[in-house]
């Protein structure tokens, strides 16, 4: 079996007392496009609006377009087969590199990077937003009070990581 190599294989994670920045590997990403009803038949409950993720058994479901959903599951999750009947499915597990950012200054680092309101009362756990970091499209997912997962395009992942690490520089011990 050929080995799987991440876009961030070469980087050393950023770690300080207050802030951690690294890669959250091992996920599968399936894009499902189709009308919500037929998708729901296979997938069960779906999020109704873009911006709030839904946790259902061991998957995170995010509505990423009018008739489009992202199913983020475990590494070996194979939902695709079942879904093909219901909708247009596109496996995207390799297209995104997942970067995590955790710590009290995390929201500041994000505010340095994207024109979004990351105030804790505004951008709360389970919420996500599709926006731009360092001129590239990303999906930022708030997975805990001060923990965020950033889905960056694989080919831009290193650049986005370097950008975030540079933004985090002032929080180095």
């Amino acid at each position, binding site marked *: 079996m050929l080995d799987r190599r991440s876009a961030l294989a070469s980087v050393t994670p950023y770690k300080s007392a207050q802030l951690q920045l690294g890669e959250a590997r091992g996920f599968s990403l399936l894009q499902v496009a189709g009308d919500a009803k037929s998708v729901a038949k296979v997938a069960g409950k779906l999020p109704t609006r873009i911006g709030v993720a839904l946790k259902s058994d061991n998957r995170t479901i995010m509505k990423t377009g009018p008739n489009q959903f992202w199913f983020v599951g475990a590494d070996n999750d194979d939902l695709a087969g079942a879904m093909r009947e219901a909708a247009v499915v596109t496996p995207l597990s390799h297209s995104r590199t997942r970067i995590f950012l955790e710590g009290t200054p995390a929201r500041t680092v994000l505010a340095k990077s994207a024109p*979004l309101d990351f105030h804790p009362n505004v951008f709360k756990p389970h919420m996500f937003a599709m926006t*731009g970091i360092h001129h590239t499209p990303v999906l930022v997912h708030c997975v805990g009070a001060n923990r965020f997962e950033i889905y960056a395009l694989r080919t831009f992942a290193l650049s986005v990581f370097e950008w975030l690490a540079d933004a985090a520089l002032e929080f180095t011990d």
Partner: protein
Amino acid sequence: MRIPCPHCGERDVSEFRYGGDATKQRPKHSEGDLKTWHDYYFLFDNPKGPHLEYWQHVLGCRQWFSITRNTATNVIGGEA
């Protein structure tokens, strides 16, 4: 400038790509003669005032949509 994406909400202009005048009637595919296509593609009302126009939320949900923006004030919304 802030642009209201119908799907993601209000976002910075920097997340969007402009798509031009949305009042123009694109000839149906396989229809329209050279003149029709010329007028559609090359001529503009270019009004100073309300302007119905296309934008794509290219750093967001990638959806195309149209809004009315007053080209004299850049105020979005209001009558086309």
